[in-house]
């Protein structure tokens, strides 16, 4: 389909009636006493019906199509399913029903989970790069850029110290620098804009604009209406897992601000 891929109106992400359900083992907290647990083990019950498991229906039937060149903001109150939807688009969280179709492999901006606090910043840069699917040579060539961008070494040789010795701001900067080192087709950003001090924020916003230019489609989850307005031309408003509104940034943000101001 090479001829259609350059078409500006070619869809890059299609969500078709997506439902996502988390299953939570309520553990000791739920019906918690030891005797209750014992009677649960003795009395037979199907795994799904067992009292310990609770279902959380995080996304309920979201349908939309994203096109090449769009920057789409996701807004909604806490727990409205924004991050969950992003993960489903990235193919990291399986859908309960419905389907997500994508052009290529969307990637979530973030490597936090692959990094290890007990290792030096240097090894974490390499590990994070490899975790994002870079080759060994690619990591080597980008290594210096990542370290320079993070500004970790501005105050001395910190990159050779374990990450647990970093201040929280330094850690966040290094994580962002690693995550932003790779170019993506479909880029998913989850409130990554507000890390580090003012100087670093300006640098990271510039980097995100760069990534946006190279990426086909960008999704941005943020609680800052300003950064949504600055970066996005279309906004999806999620509430309680449902798509409340889908339209141009101004229109949706106005409605959202009216609703939240009340």
């Amino acid at each position: 389909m090479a001829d259609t891929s350059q078409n500006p109106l070619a869809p890059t992400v299609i969500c078709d009636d997506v439902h996502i359900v988390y299953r939570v083992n309520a553990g000791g907290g739920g019906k918690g006493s030891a005797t209750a647990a014992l009677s649960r083990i003795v009395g037979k019950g199907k795994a799904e019906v067992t009292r310990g498991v609770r279902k959380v229906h995080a996304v309920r039937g979201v349908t939309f199509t994203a096109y090449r060149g769009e920057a789409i903001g996701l807004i909604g109150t806490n727990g409205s399913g924004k991050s969950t939807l992003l993960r489903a688009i990235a193919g990291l969280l399986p859908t309960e029903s419905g389907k997500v179709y994508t052009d290529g492999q969307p990637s979530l901006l973030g490597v936090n989970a692959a990094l290890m606090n007990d290792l030096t910043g240097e090894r974490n840069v390499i590990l994070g790069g490899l975790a994002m699917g870079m080759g060994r040579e690619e990591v080597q060539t980008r290594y210096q850029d990542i370290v320079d961008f993070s500004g970790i070494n501005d105050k001395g040789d910190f990159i050779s110290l374990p990450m647990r010795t970093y201040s929280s701001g330094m850690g966040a900067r290094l994580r962002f620098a690693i995550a932003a080192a790779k170019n993506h087709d479909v880029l998913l950003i989850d409130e990554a804009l507000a890390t580090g001090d003012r100087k670093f924020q300006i640098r990271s916003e510039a980097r995100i604009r760069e990534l946006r230019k190279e990426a086909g489609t960008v999704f941005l989850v943020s609680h800052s209406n300003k950064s949504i307005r600055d970066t996005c031309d279309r906004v999806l408003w999620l509430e309680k897992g449902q798509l409340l509104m889908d339209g141009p940034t101004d229109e949706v943000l106005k409605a959202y601000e009216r609703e939240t101001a009340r």
Partner: protein
Amino acid sequence: MSAPPSSVDEGLAPGDLAAKYGLSVSGARPGLFEYIRELWSRRHFILAFSSAKLTAQYSQAKLGQVWQVATPLLNALVYYLIFGLILDAGRGMSKEVYIPFLVTGIFVFTFTQSSVMAGVRAISGNLGLVRALHFPRATLPISFSLQQLQQLLFSLVVLAAVAIAFGSYPSLSWLLLIPALFLQFVFNVGLAMIMARMGSKTPDLAQLMPFVMRTWMYASGVMFSIPVMLADKPAWIADVLMYNPAAVYMDLVRFALIDGYGASNLPAHVWATALGWALVFGIGGFVYFWKAEERYGRG
């Protein structure tokens, strides 16, 4: 409700639209060979991840990496104290054979045991990673098994020292360690992948497995010779125990390493059995793990 108008595609069902532009289902399970190819392209990550885990393991301790060697050594010492001195489990063997026999058994079994335990938590203990980045999930159980292999290599230093101290000097037969441990590694990876899939669905296995593994350890003749200990029981019990994978790999390593532990202690067709276990579990475990690839990370 508006999306950029697209006159030609108006009214097309999402599925048809996706098909028209060649979009694929996000997070769908790739075919087996595609999966192997993806896994191969992540080989550097697998190596880096396993050695990073290994380094991180002792980085808070003052003695640091010394514990890589000290931990197995202390382990061997404790078992020797109890089984060698107090319980006298080394019946039918001289001291020169029994001590390396015991230490080998512990290290080789620990290799499988810790691979299984790491496998159970490979997915369920790394949900953050699974939900943040895209990579073939088999990377995790393989990395963890590789970490255990690296740990075993440290233990082998201790093991060689023990063997030499009790009169088994390096010889050509020591080279047999390589195929024996390689086959065991393949077996471990397969088993770890089976445990990873089961553990991702039922994290409770992490609580249950220590008991299963301990039973397996005592049944595999880690600290005693199975034929000597079970001499007055029906022969089939000893046969079953001796052909179980843990016992097979242990016996092969002992045979390679210890001078006084000759071929008469090995069951018939032992290399074929070792290869068979490795193939059955290696391939079976991999396919079993791959079958659920798209479901890992479900909340």
